């Protein structure tokens, strides 16, 4: 009973997220730093105001990620960069499956991170880019109650639907680069289909796992 319900929920969220991605993002001429600032403030405020999310309510968090974050993420570019030279060897069908699975994995990871927001504040650093740039970096830091501030930087590229995030840097490490060697070694082991299979298995595993322990 439970796995089936989970499967349905996952299928529904994936379907929903795909439809969100397909829909045109609003305010396509918004400047990249303004966009990141708006989205992150919006998300943090929502989490702080919602006790269910803080308690780890998976559906609510997934809704939040799907509606407020995914429209601004270029999952294909992200996957393409992580796959590197293997991307061109993949068929269009494989490319699609790969970026779908990778995006789902990131959604799960991100959902887990969102449930942990408590008293953190985000501070944006001065943004500098020329109007002709098509790739920019927006830099921020998360000030936490104890310890050093956490670096949180975003790379965005200009698309027909406005600026989209394709890489994030947490604590000095870029997400795409961190996944690159995982992708490489999985592809070396079992080909592109092997990597897709690994990602799919992990996603199913995560779907059936409670999201976060309730906060104290």
């Amino acid at each position, binding site marked *: 009973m439970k796995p089936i319900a989970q499967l349905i929920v996952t299928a529904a969220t994936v379907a929903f997220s795909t439809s969100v991605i397909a829909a045109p993002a609003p305010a396509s001429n918004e400047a990249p730093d303004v966009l990141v600032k708006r989205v992150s403030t919006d998300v943090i405020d929502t989490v702080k105001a919602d006790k269910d999310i803080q308690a780890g309510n998976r559906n609510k968090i997934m809704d939040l990620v799907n509606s407020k974050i995914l429209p601004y993420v270029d999952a294909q570019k992200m996957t393409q960069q992580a796959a590197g030279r293997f991307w061109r060897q993949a068929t269009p069908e494989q490319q699609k499956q790969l970026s779908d699975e990778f995006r789902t994995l990131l959604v799960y990871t991100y959902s887990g991170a969102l449930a942990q927001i408590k008293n953190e504040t985000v501070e944006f650093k001065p943004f500098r880019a020329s109007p002709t740039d098509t790739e920019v970096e927006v830099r921020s830091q998360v000030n936490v109650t*104890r310890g050093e501030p956490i670096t949180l930087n975003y790379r965005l590229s200009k698309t027909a639907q406005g600026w989209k995030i394709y890489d994030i840097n947490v604590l000095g490490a*870029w997400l795409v680069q961190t996944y690159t060697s995982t992708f490489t070694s999985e592809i070396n082991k079992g080909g592109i289909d092997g990597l897709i299979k690994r990602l799919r298995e992990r996603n199913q595993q995560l779907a059936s796992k409670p999201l976060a322990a309730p906060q104290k």
Partner: protein
Amino acid sequence: MKDRNASGQFRARGLVVAIGASLLLGGCASTANPQDPFEKFNRAMFTFNDAVDRTALKPAATAYKNVTPTFVQTGVNNFFSNLSDLWSSANNFAQLKGGDGFNDLTRFAVNSTLGLGGVLDIASPAGLRKHNEDLGQTLGFWGVPPGPYLMLPLLGPSTVRDTVALPGDWYGDPWTHVNDIPWRNSGIVVRAVDQRASVLDASNLLEDAALDRYEFIRDGYLQRRASRVLDTDKAEERAEKVQKGLDKVQDKVQEKVQQVQEKLGVNKTGTPDGSNAADAPAAGTPDAGSAPNNPPVPAPVSSQPVQK
């Protein structure tokens, strides 16, 4: 950057070779990742550390987090964090970062006294941020390359350079100079449990995100470490400051140019039209014939560049 590494390579090579040979005893395998030639050894250590973590450290940290009152946890964390500020300050000075060095020294002084021996962190709210520099970063600053990735038993991810620096960091850690051995050892345990507790959520996330945790931690760690040594963030801030300075200079130059132009504009009535021909060719030409009647005209002409 390359040059610095090249010169450092020379100095560090002896140490790297010695440590590498003695520690690893040929536990190397041919692998894809050039930064991780000791992958076989490292993976074995990782498995060992993971077992220790699963059976002892993580349960202890979880219990500590759930049972101990939050203010106690914060106090413990602050206390050891305060001790580390002293060594961090020394390393900042060793990297010629005087501002950060004084900042950390002040943190230590303020928190040790007014903060009741470091239990309260009153420096942070006062705007004195923590920096966390260690000897490995200092070596990196002076050009010593990180060398291969190294997974240390119990201590976790490191590099050959940072492993070489570890005894220095131990020496620089005031807690290791506590003479009472039971106190010292229990302090080390408490600190380990407290640190593990503070990354519990993050480590749970990591388990979700990584297909191969070993690779994920390695690649994340090496990137983070490199960015810390190079101070990518601070370098960007510095670049920002330089850029602002340049902008200011540019503004001043423009101001000067405008002032000169204004002066020229005032003088222009007397001088031939050569210099301001570019500024106001349209307005200038009809006036050329009636030079003596000009006095009211220069004012609008000279204000034009300002509007630009």
